[in-house]
């Protein structure tokens, strides 16, 4: 079965420091991987995706993620965190076993990022 795991419930980082939010996946075949961010009482916003190509993917708001096939990971990173980055972050993988290619996403449990001034 396909799955995605976010091993950290919460990540705390000081403003200006680099941040990493971890994600590992388990899929058969080549994965389609995504990161979304959710601010309080809002819907999810797309940050970035990996489908194919360069292992380092750049996305919105200065975020990037590195696809590592050997470690089955897709960690989200940012060189310098902002207080405004504080939010809930979700990693997701496309459910390739879904019939007809319905583009269903399997989401991780989410990681709460807290950036302190």
């Amino acid at each position, binding site marked *: 079965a396909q799955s995605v795991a976010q091993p950290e419930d919460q990540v705390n980082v000081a403003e200006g420091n680099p941040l990493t939010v971890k994600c590992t996946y388990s899929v058969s075949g080549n994965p389609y991987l*995504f990161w979304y961010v959710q601010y309080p*009482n809002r*819907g*999810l916003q797309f940050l970035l*995706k990996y489908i194919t190509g360069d292992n380092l993917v750049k996305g919105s708001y200065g975020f990037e993620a590195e696809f590592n096939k050997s470690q089955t990971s897709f960690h989200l990173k940012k060189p310098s965190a902002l207080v405004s980055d504080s939010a809930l972050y979700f990693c997701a993988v496309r459910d390739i076993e879904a019939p007809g290619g*319905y583009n*269903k*996403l399997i989401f991780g*449990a989410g990681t709460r990022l807290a950036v302190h001034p």
Partner: protein
Amino acid sequence: SQTIHQWPATLVQPVGSPLSLECTVEGTSNPNLYWYRQAAGRGLQLLFYSVGIGQISSEVPQNLSASRPQDRQFILSSKKLLLSDSGFYLCASKGWTGVKSGANVLTFGAGSRLTVL
């Protein structure tokens, strides 16, 4: 780009009352549509998805139902709400927007928060 409208944004209902949450999509045609539920501000559970008018697939057995009366309208309903139906309901869309970079990306609405008392 796609825009998803959800209403109502907030709803407080007594146990046993009916429910209707509505979602409409702009900026695409013939989208795949999804209802997710987010409990306790964390993980997302896919409830229903639809690939076309009148076509609904249920992911989990529950007290809820979904309908798609028009191409860009998706409705989540219940005849009698349970306490366990409380949560944050998110509608999502996957449709062609004419932009290749948007391929495979789900667009989410702002969500509807349901409290059942």
